[in-house]
């Protein structure tokens, strides 16, 4: 690589303009992305929420979130000092809302990573090894697709015990199938290319071909699909937490709606307690969806009209 940049051949300098091809591709992608208005809106929304989630502990203290130490009026509508009103023990809904972004985003992202790792590994193996292994793995994938997602996730988190770890595992186990099918299809396409045959001829083993040669080419696709997976994972996380499968002392958007629901905020007509966390979920999920669709539209122009 260094030799090529130091002594560029005339041809290469015209094509690459002195930059490595991958950097150039990334730059092209970046300039195409900036032109996508909805994609940029989604990105800005996600950045704002990420900054909010990361900085929340700096200016929200534990005492603000403690139900026992709350000083505000009980279940009161928005008023001076409490812009979004208060919950049953008298905590500020605004502070709960800001702090609640942390578990929702964290579990959404971690569950997505787990989902994608499981899905990519199974898809890669099923695509690389033909015959029995591939057939068996795809059959297992089909069985999992046919399972009801939410009842399975509920059962898993009940059996594993309440808490964020169980929820993460439950989401990963119920949603890896999409990634597996996608990666398998792409692996089959990549393995048909001549350079894989060349690598094999040079003595590369199965593991080396999968990790060094196929994976880098499947990676962009995995990243795109994972953006959309995050959106689904956040929805699943809030649903499971709403059903009461989260840690009861954690503050999250799902648990806020759960407490509003189980502790009589609905008969009291306390819309200020229920509206904000749900809107936050909608905005964040929409943000991930917009970013995912924008990236997809750039990498796969055939999809633009969808």
């Amino acid at each position, binding site marked *: 690589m260094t030799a090529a940049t130091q002594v560029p051949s005339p041809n290469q300098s015209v094509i690459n303009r002195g930059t490595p091809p991958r950097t150039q591709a990334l730059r092209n992608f970046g300039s195409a992305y900036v032109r996508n208005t909805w994609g940029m809106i989604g990105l800005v929304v996600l950045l704002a929420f990420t900054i909010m989630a990361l900085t929340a502990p700096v200016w929200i203290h534990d005492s603000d979130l403690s139900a026992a130490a709350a000083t505000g009026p009980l279940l009161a509508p928005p008023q001076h000092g409490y812009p979004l009103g208060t919950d049953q023990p008298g905590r500020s809904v605004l502070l709960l809302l800001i702090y609640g972004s942390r578990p929702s985003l964290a579990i959404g992202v971690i569950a997505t990573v787990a989902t994608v790792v499981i899905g990519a590994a199974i898809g890669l193996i099923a695509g690389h090894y033909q015959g029995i292994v591939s057939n068996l793995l795809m059959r297992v994938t089909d069985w999992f697709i046919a399972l009801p997602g939410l009842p399975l996730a509920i059962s898993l988190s009940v059996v594993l015990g309440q808490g964020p770890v169980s929820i993460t595992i439950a989401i990963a186990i119920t949603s890896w199938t999409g990634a597996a099918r996608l990666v398998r299809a792409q692996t089959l396409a990549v393995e048909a290319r001549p350079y894989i045959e060349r690598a094999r001829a040079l003595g590369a083993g199965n593991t080396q071909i999968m990790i060094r040669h196929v994976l880098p080419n499947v990676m962009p696709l995995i990243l795109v699909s994972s953006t959309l997976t995050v959106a689904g994972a956040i929805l699943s996380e809030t649903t499971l937490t709403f*059903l009461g499968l989260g840690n009861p002392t954690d503050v999250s958007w799902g648990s806020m709606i759960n407490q509003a629901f189980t502790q009589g905020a609905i008969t009291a007509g306390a819309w200020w307690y229920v509206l904000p966390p749900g809107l936050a979920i909608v905005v964040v999920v*929409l943000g991930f969806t917009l970013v995912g669709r924008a990236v997809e539209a750039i990498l796969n122009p055939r999809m633009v009209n969808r």
Partner: protein
Amino acid sequence: MASANVLGPELVDSEQSSGRADSSERSAFWWYLARKIITALISLLVVLVIGFVLFTIMPQNPVESIARASGKPMDAAQLAALRKSLGLDEPIWQRFGIYVWHSITLHLGYSYGYNQSVASLVLPRIGPTLLLTGLSTLISIVLGLWLGSKAGWRPGRWLDRIASGTSLVFWSVPTFWLGIILLIVLGTGVGPIPTLFPSGGMTTPGFNGGPVGTVLDVAWHLALPCVTLVLVVFAQYVTIMRSSLIDELGNPYLLTARAKGLRDDDVLRKHALPNALLPTVTVIFLQIGGLISGAITVETVFSWPGLGLLTYNALKIPDLELLQGTFVMFSASIIAMNLVADLLYRVIDPRVRAQ
């Protein structure tokens, strides 16, 4: 005419050699049916295996969790008797065999939370869930396909933008939250809005208004849960219908239809729609899993006495036997729906039949 085109070769074929073609087609159908049913049965067996692993092998101390679910203190002798009656000391293969046999004969176990057999809890709740999900699906399909075909016929126009945007937003809305908001605004009443709908349940307790009155009462209770489910589900049908219609747009047969001088509306209704509906029908049946998730949260929010509310009550206790019962029930209904989709697809798509 699209239908004449499709029927053409078949009519010719049956005129030439009616008897033999008929019987071979019929036997091909039976083979197809048998293959699909066997696949469905294998899937069902896999569901039972997963249920067995989840609820029988994974819980570390089932006896203790049952004791907790029943809410009564138990001494060591009672616990040992319970262990024996559950067959926990038997070898695992024997337990699996018994479990499969019990599931087939609908002996779904005993709920210690309710002190009732799981079957007697699950079976009466199938009806309300079918009523809620069935009606919502029907409305969603009509609404979603109508809006999706309008949007997909002219992609990029204002109707398409609104329809696509709306479905994107509704896809991002958590079902249970939408239900709670509707419940607060229309069930409890906020500000000037009076209480318009009941806050939950399927009937008004103590209400007796004859058969017509009962139907109206149930419909009144059904309105909010049904609207919630429709709002969340129809958006997906819009997207599916729209993209499968866009796939058809470039096809030359539409140009032919237009060249014949057909009105734009007829080109859409008689030529493009029948073809675009084919992939849509399959996807509608495959979406049934999403519908079940929606039913669980919507039934929870509106205390609709179906399988979803039963699942929520079981997970709160937690009652593993009952959870297992609803899990098997939901899985079986998805497998059944996939089977129906496969068969229906063969009926409506002549190309699959020809294969």
